[in-house]
């Protein structure tokens, strides 16, 4: 019995010491999730007194959580809508927008493919299943369209920036990771896929979009069309531990992790 009491006491002690630390809740976009997970992992190692809980419920849910006050930081792959801003005001929340990185997605083909560029409209037609032969773009052979699983943030970005409301046709092959897309495209001379800028290597050939080469510079300057800003939202100006974290994330160390996660770091 004594032993049990001691055990309970220890448990309570551990639990209360856990409560003494600051816990920061992060929720939102699955596109931003991999960046956030990398950052939080490194940040918590350096600052063990701050605990982060990160979950990815989608941009909408993250923004909803910041409006309801159930999260400290919201991740979003889009700006807050006017309706959401109004709703936040109503509840006394002044959401502060912070751009954390840029998401640039590059269409890639097999190096043996003669095609070197496409317009956004052509990409859309390819992924909608309307263009089925490379002849339409100056190449040859049938087109094999490779897409990502519908839960991935990359798919979400592609759907928004290229498909613009149309659906990727069911005949598109599914790969579960960007690495697998690169692998599949490099093995198939008919294939087209899309990956984050961090996944480009010699085994695939990036296509120019509307004649613009996709890289960190063109994405940061806004010239490259398949790019968008990724945001964090906080309730009012970030304060205390949250401010420390945000400043760190926007600094050199945080932005290095952005690049490692396959995204475009902010220009300093």
């Amino acid at each position, binding site marked *: 019995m004594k032993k049990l009491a001691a055990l309970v006491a220890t448990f309570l002690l551990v639990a209360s010491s856990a409560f003494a630390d600051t816990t920061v809740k992060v929720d939102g976009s*699955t596109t931003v*999730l991999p960046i956030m997970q990398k950052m939080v992992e490194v940040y918590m190692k350096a600052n063990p007194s701050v605990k982060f809980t990160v*979950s*990815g*419920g*989608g941009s909408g*849910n993250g923004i909803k959580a910041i409006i309801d006050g159930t999260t400290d930081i919201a991740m979003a792959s889009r700006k807050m809508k006017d309706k959401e801003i109004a709703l936040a005001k109503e509840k006394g929340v002044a959401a502060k927008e912070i751009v954390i990185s840029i998401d640039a997605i590059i269409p890639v083909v097999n190096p043996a493919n003669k095609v070197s560029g496409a317009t956004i409209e052509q990409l859309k037609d390819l992924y909608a299943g309307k263009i089925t032969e490379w002849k339409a773009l100056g190449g040859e*052979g*049938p*087109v*094999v369209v490779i897409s990502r*699983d*519908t*839960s*991935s*943030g990359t*798919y*979400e970005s592609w*759907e928004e920036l290229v498909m613009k409301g149309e*659906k990727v046709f*069911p*005949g*598109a*092959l*599914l*790969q*579960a990771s960007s690495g*697998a897309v690169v*692998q*599949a495209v490099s*093995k*198939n001379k*008919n*294939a087209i896929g899309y990956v984050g800028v961090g996944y480009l290597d010699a085994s695939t050939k990036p296509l120019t979009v509307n004649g613009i080469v996709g890289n960190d510079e063109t994405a940061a300057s806004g010239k490259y069309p398949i790019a968008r800003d990724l945001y964090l939202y906080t309730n009012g100006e970030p304060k205390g531990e949250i401010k420390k974290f945000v400043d760190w994330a926007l600094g050199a160390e945080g932005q290095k992790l952005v690049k490692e996660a396959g995204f475009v770091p902010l220009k300093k």
Partner: protein
Amino acid sequence: MAASRKTKDSVIRIAFLVTALSSIVALGLIMLYLFIEGLPIFEHVSVTDFLFGHLWYPTSDPPEFGIFPLIVASVAVTLVSSALAIPLGVMTAIYLAEIAGPKTRGFFKPVVELLAALPSVVIGFFGMVVVAPFLQDTFDLATGLNLFNAALMLAFMSVPTICSVSEDAIYSVPAELKEASLALGATHWETISRVIIPASLSGISTAIILGMSRAIGETMVVLMVAGGAAMIPNSLFSPVRPMPSSIAAEMAEAPFRGDHYYALFAIGIVLFLFTLLFNIIADHIAEKHKQVGAATL
């Protein structure tokens, strides 16, 4: 003294009972969880729309949860792989049990069983980087990641199961039957085809069904080599997306307890019912054609 021996005995008995129960309890809890997490989707989508809908766009707005192409893909991949694996597996088993000498058998059997020990991700990788480009070049296909490739890789995986279980069944056919047949003047082939195989048919059927249920539940291989297009295949070389690969690819990022999450669990239920059906059939056949002594033929 006698009492303590009795106590010891009953303690051991209970310990074994608990051990035996633990797996049943674990299975029960997993099933319960599967149904708790899967059934809520049917509040939003009718069972018919879910099972027979042709479009799978779980994250679009509005989402579409039709898994018919996924079911067709699973069934097609399993059937094609069985068509490849059954003759291979059963014929290897007959060779090993009846024709091969003890030395050859001692060498071949462990090798065949070793094939079962290959991790599925290795088989998947082989299919992706070796078989897919080969198929594409040889048959001039748009893509080598397709139904046939997946079926071929799955056949690799179910051959050892089919072979090893049916070999045991053939090997355990009583020697009297064989001897009687040979004594009546039948040739070795006649003995195999008219006596041995009919006598071990229940074991062979069980083996086949176990192999098929291995194929339908396999995830990694189909995720890597089936192509993943969520549409009904129109040829042997169409890319397909069987049920397990959709679950594996999408579960990690589906919002917890959202409709997409529930839908993936509901696919799990469908898959579970398929394998359950296979196992019941296997059990039924094994029970019905049970070899009792040497006199049942």
